[in-house]
Structure formats: structure tokens, C-alpha cells
């Protein structure tokens, strides 16, 4: 019986070619394009230098700034006021102002002051611009120190520098960090939300009326809706792993087997969530709105873009119920760090708990609404 129901589902899914196209297009687009779009590294910041000193020492600083790949020197401003105007117009992202006694102070007292003004309308961008500029000026100060310290013992520039060594993602490549998380999003769409839409579709078209008066049990009916998407989800997941390797040369450091244990647990959890939605929504548009809402909450509270640990406490409590969060953590740990099952056991338990809660809820609400 179940076999025939599943055959029918597959016939419907592949008819019209929408799902097959989606299966090819969605992973390529999401893995091929999204990591670039979600890149938080900022390059080509437009900088104005207001050089009031116009000495050989200040010129060195200007050269150093314009040589950086992060900054593009747009103009050498004549006054601070004019530079601020350029920021207001949006032509410039930050201003570096060098005072007129820069060289004199530096050589004589070993103390040079530089003012940085950053446009922080986009806070993230402003912060990064400031950090980049600070590191350039520090580097410059160290060079100056080497040059003048012999003459001037009280030189105040930074005396040591910190060289970070980034574990597991040495170049801090944002793409490598994003790709495993995007695979999770794909799985969420395919195994959580598409079956929910399909079930609500049967309700809306009334075809469920006809099924209800046949010997098909509700359990068989729902399984017949889920199983095709589970199968498709697995294929899709494999395909996205292949794409990650093809586009970024990314292969999991940890075991693929462990990863698939999590895939199974996660698929069950998220399809339980889809079922809950399908029980409450009466029409496709209601279901779409619910899905859209929860998709946003899930993604923003999953640590996909911003780490959960930096959220306020109450938000962390909400995130603790988010299956996406656990799975994204796991994916990153397996892909980048090579963690084994023993290190991930709390996440596995969390996903299983969420799966049990959601599926129980789905069963209870199903009985109530029918």
C-alpha cells in the first residue's frame, strides 16, 4: 500500500519538471553564490587622507594606506570639514587626518597623533574599517620606531605585535565557514517545508477528502508524503557535498558517516516541524506565511550569520530550541574541525529531543484538527 502511495508521490513530484529543476538549481545557486554574498570581509573601503603636515613622514603613511588591499584612496582632502562633507555624501567611508606638527612631534617626542573618523551607518562595516586602519597605523608605527628609536629613546609606538594563528580555518575564509551551514538550509527547505506545503496542498484542493474514505491510514498517508522528500533530501545533500568540493575544494575533515547520522536525526526533526505547520494551516498561503516567518527566525537565531553566544541571554534560550542551530554547529565542526561523534553527543541528543517534541506535537495536533 505504502509503495503505491510513494510511487504516486514521485509521479506527481517529477511531473512538470519543477522539482527536478529545483533540485539542480537550488544547491548550485545556494552553494555557488550565497557564500560570496554573505561574505563579511570588506574590501575597497574609500578613504580620504587630510594631510595637514605634508612632510616626508606623513607621506609614508599615505602610501601605506593606499597600498593596502582594503582601502582605496579616493582623494587627498584639503580640510577636515570638506572631508566630512564627502562622508555625508557617501563618497567616502573613512577619514584619516594627520595634524600639521606630526613629523615634528614624532621625531622629537616619539609621539605621533592620527585621527580616524569612520562612517558607521553600517556598524559592521565601520567597525571593520576602523580595525583595518588601526592595524595599518600600528604597522607604520613599528616601522617608524625601528627608524627613529636609535635617536629617540622615549619612542611611544607599540612595542610588540600580536600575530594570531587561526585554528581550523587558517585564512579565516568566510566561504568555508558558510558552505556547511548552507547545506543545512537546503535540507531544511527540502525535508521540512516542501512536504508541509504538499500536505496542505492536498487539503486545499480537496483531494484529501477522497483519500480519507479509502482504507489508506493517516499514518501511511503522511509517511508517503515524507519519504519521497527524505530520499530527495539525501540525494540533495550528497550533491551539495559534491558542489562544495567542486567550487571550494571543501571536503569534511571528520567522518562522513557521523555526518549522515546527524542528517537522519535532523531530517526527522525538521519534517516533524513541517507536519505541525501542515496541521495548523488550512490553505497554501497560510502555510507559506508560517514557513516564511519560521524560516527567518530559524536562520537568524541559528548562528548562521552571527554567533549565538553573542546574543542576549533570552535570545539564547530561544535559540536553544532551534534544531538548525545544533545541526549547523555540527556541520561546521565536522567539516572544519573533524570532530567525532563523542564530541558532538550533546548536539545529537539536542536534535533527537527536538525531533521527539515536534513529532509528538504533530501527532497530537493532527488528531485535534481532524
Amino acid at each position, binding site marked *: *500500500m505504502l509503495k*503505491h*502511495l510513494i510511487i*504516486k508521490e514521485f*509521479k*506527481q513530484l517529477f*511531473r*512538470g519538471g519543477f522539482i527536478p529543476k529545483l533540485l539542480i538549481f537550488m544547491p548550485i545557486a545556494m552553494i555557488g553564490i550565497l557564500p560570496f554574498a554573505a561574505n563579511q570581509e570588506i574590501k575597497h573601503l574609500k578613504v580620504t587622507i587630510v594631510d595637514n603636515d605634508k612632510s616626508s613622514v606623513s607621506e609614508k603613511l599615505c602610501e601605506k594606506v593606499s597600498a593596502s588591499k582594503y582601502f582605496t584612496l579616493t582623494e587627498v582632502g584639503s580640510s577636515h570639514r570638506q572631508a566630512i562633507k564627502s562622508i555625508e555624501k557617501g563618497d567616502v567611508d573613512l577619514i584619516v587626518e594627520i595634524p600639521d606638527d606630526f613629523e615634528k612631534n614624532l621625531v622629537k617626542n616619539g609621539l605621533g597623533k592620527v585621527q580616524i573618523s569612520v562612517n558607521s551607518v553600517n556598524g559592521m562595516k565601520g567597525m571593520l574599517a576602523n580595525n583595518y586602519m588601526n592595524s595599518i597605523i600600528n604597522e607604520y608605527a613599528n616601522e617608524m620606531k625601528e627608524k627613529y628609536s636609535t635617536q629617540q629613546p622615549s619612542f611611544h609606538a607599540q612595542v610588540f605585535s600580536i600575530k594570531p594563528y587561526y585554528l581550523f580555518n587558517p585564512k579565516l575564509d568566510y566561504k568555508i565557514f558558510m558552505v556547511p551551514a548552507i547545506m543545512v538550509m537546503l535540507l531544511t527547505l527540502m525535508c521540512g517545508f516542501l512536504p508541509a506545503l504538499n500536505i496542505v496542498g492536498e487539503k486545499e*484542493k*480537496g*483531494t*484529501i*477528502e*477522497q*483519500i*480519507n*474514505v*479509502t*482504507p*489508506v491510514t493517516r499514518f501511511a498517508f503522511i509517511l508517503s508524503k515524507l519519504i519521497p522528500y527524505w530520499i530527495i533530501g539525501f540525494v540533495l545533500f550528497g550533491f551539495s557535498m559534491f558542489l562544495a568540493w567542486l567550487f571550494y575544494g571543501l571536503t569534511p575533515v571528520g567522518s562522513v558517516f557521523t555526518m549522515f547520522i546527524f542528517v537522519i536525526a535532523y531530517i526527522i526533526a525538521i519534517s516533524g516541524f513541517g507536519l505541525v505547520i501542515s496541521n495548523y494551516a488550512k490553505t497554501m498561503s497560510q502555510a507559506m506565511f508560517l514557513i516564511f516567518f519560521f524560516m527567518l527566525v530559524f536562520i537568524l537565531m541559528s548562528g548562521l550569520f552571527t554567533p549565538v553566544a553573542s546574543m542576549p541571554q533570552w535570545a539564547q534560550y530561544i535559540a536553544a530550541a532551534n534544531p538548525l542551530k545544533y545541526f549547523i554547529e555540527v556541520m561546521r565542526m565536522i567539516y572544519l574541525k573533524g570532530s567525532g561523534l563523542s564530541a558532538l553527543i550533546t548536539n545529537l541528543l539536542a536534535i533527537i529531543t527536538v525531533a521527539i517534541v515536534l513529532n509528538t506535537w504533530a501527532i497530537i495536533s493532527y488528531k485535534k484538527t481532524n
Partner: protein
Amino acid sequence: MMIETENICKSYGKIQAVKSWSISVKANEIYGLIGPDGAGKTTLFRLLTTVLLPDSGKGVVAGYDIVKDFRQIRKEIGYMPGRFSLYEDLTVKENLQFFATVFSTTIEENMHLIKDIYSQLEKFSSRKAGKLSGGMKQKLALCCALIHSPKVLFLDEPTTGVDVVSRREFWQMLKRLKQEGITIIVSTPYMDEAEMCDSIALVNQGEFLRIDTPNGIVSSFDKTLFSVKSNKMHQLLNDLKQYSNALSAFSFGESIHLKVNSPTIKQDLSSYLSDKGHSELEIQEIKPNIEDCFMAMTSM
């Protein structure tokens, strides 16, 4: 008895859709459930097909209790909902095949039942169900409801929105199915179809009005019915309703039907109407049909 209910009740919130109905349908008959929209016909069907649970009362279909043995009932019945509810993105053949496998049978096994109907569909067998015309959809739905050779066939307003020729054809099909030994319970808002049934139940707004054969209902009409026409038709209905001897009056096509106690008041009636300013009067005593009986029961 193929179907029997005992004081079955169902309400949605405050609205009582089915108020204590007791019906009994004999094996191998066509049973008509006749009443306007909102009478409770579909609700009764949903109760009998085990999709809804009754609030109170009992029901038995093909020997099985509608609450306890719902699984058995679902194997024995065919249901054609009022709204087309087959898979529009599957072809005619695929739909038929699907419903056959769902009942663990094959198309070939019960071909004899649907042969007449399916022969008209065969040339469209690879067309998607959604692309069929209304009449063809209805035939396909009937085929799918029959594919597992059910003992009882439930048809919920099968002829609503269907043209006159197809309607007549459809009733011919039902007569043939009856000869195959299938019990058919059919609901319809059209009173003229009532005459095709072996027994009918007249229902209105959740109330049970009467059960009888079509002839029984007509012959039990023991009053007199006049068909009245005049030059001021609009005013006529109001005047007739106020007429002291009138039991009920309702418009019926081009004339107004008036129910009175005896034919002897014809003279009195025509002078009453003349006084009210009507001329070109036509008053005729007529034989009532089922619609008259229904209207006489429900209207004043």
C-alpha cells in the same frame, strides 16, 4: 438494511447541521436525499462515510458501525464528493490505477462495472484529469468511486453544475449500477431528480421532513393546489399570502401555487383577487409534484 441511522446528530458550534435523523436504506435501491443548500446533506454523507464523528446517535453502513468499524466501512463504500477531488496532475488512467491499488485491486478486475462509463473516457486516458471538461471529470470521479466494486455508493450532489443532457445520462448510469446490485444514496438540490429515486427523504435546514417513495409523497398531498396567474404578478404573491383560506403560497415558474383545503373555494378566491384589483385571472387546479410538496411543507 444497507444503511440505518438512529437519531443521528451533528452540530458545528451553534449550528445544528443534522438534527436527530433516522433513515433506513434498503439494499439495492436508489435513495435520494433531497433538499436545498444547507439542509445537512453533505454532513450526513460525511458522517456515513466515517470522515466525521456524530455528536450522538447511531449509524450502521453495510452492517458496520460508523464509529467502531470505520476501517471496514471504508473498504466497502465508494464516495464521490460534491467537489472534484481527484489528482488533477495525474492522468485519467493514473488516477484510476491509483485508486484501484489503494483498494488493493486492479482496473481489470472490476472493469465490468465501469465499462459503459469508461468507454467514453478511454480516448482521454492519457490526459491529465485537470484538463477534462466538467462532464468528463464527473464520469472519471464515478469510475474512481466504483473501481473497488463497493457495496454502497455515496454521491454528493453529483449533478450540480452539469448540463441537462449529461444529467439525464448520469441517471441512466445509476439505474444500470443499481442492476449490478449496488446500493446508491444520492443527494441533490433538484426536486425533478427525486422522481428517479426508489425512496426519498426531504430535508431542510437540518430538519427531517419526510421519507417515502416519490409517489407516496405526492399522493399523501391531501389538500388542493391551484396555479394562479394575473396581470399583476408581483402583487399577487403578497395578496395570496394574506388570503384567509390560503395554507401556503409560493411562486413556481410563471405562476403562483396556492395550497388550500378544498377546491370549492375557487369562486371565493377569484372574487377576492378581483377586489384586490387583479384582472386577467387564471386559476387552475393542478396535480402537485415533489417540489410542490416540498415547498408546501417548508413555506407559508
